């Protein structure tokens, strides 16, 4: 842990910028500081990794499907409409 890098962007600030980082919306200077911090800080590397895992897990939640009754109502509506 290098003191200046932590001083430039402490962990407390880095965790607020994770989405900006993964969406590639950080200004070049901030991005460089973010990555310099990560290179020195195992905890923040773990934190970023867990945020990325969270995003992947969210993407894999099963799609909620309609109940049979609602699906039936919709099918009926489509039938009426196509007549």
């Amino acid at each position: 842990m290098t003191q200046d890098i932590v001083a430039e962007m402490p962990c407390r600030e880095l965790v607020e910028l994770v989405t900006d980082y993964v969406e590639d919306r950080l200004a070049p200077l901030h991005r460089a500081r973010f990555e310099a911090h990560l290179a020195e800080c195992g905890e923040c590397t773990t934190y970023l990794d867990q945020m990325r895992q969270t995003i992947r897990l969210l993407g894999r939640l099963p799609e909620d499907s309609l109940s049979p009754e609602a699906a039936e109502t919709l099918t009926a509506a489509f039938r009426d409409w196509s007549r």
Partner: protein
Amino acid sequence: MLGVARARVESRAVAEEVVQEAWLVVLRDLDRFDGRSSLRTWVLGIVVNLARSRARAERRSVPLPLDDGGPVVDGARFLPSDARWPGHWALGPLPWPGPEEALLAAETREVILGAIVALPPAQREVLVLRDLEGLDAADACSVLGLTDTNQRVLLHRARSRVRTAIEQHVHQAEQR
């Protein structure tokens, strides 16, 4: 569509009504669809608008603020300003068991769903559209009527809360 509706209305039955209503609007207005957005974005926009007005009618409460303020990680987990490394982790993120597949077990899935349900509606809408439905930022902004910055703030808060919920769950499971 159901997931997007449920981001705003509490009950599944009401969300299903919103989806049905949305389909009827889609069928009625299809000839007015101008192709400036993708059809999917247009349809999801209709769902969001119907769900929001339904939620307003049911609650009759003031709209919730966009941002609930406060840091995304509990401030007590960082070193205080008079420490040698102020703002550095005092209690770092607790490790998660690997492989990632283990986190897709039914129990963790429930925890993730519970965390989504507990989010403020504005955060939940963005999270559902971006991370569950897979819309890009521009489409999510257009569906929800948000600026790019607000969209990212809401998404970040929502993702951070879900991460915290998983961490708490993993930690509790280890202590059992």
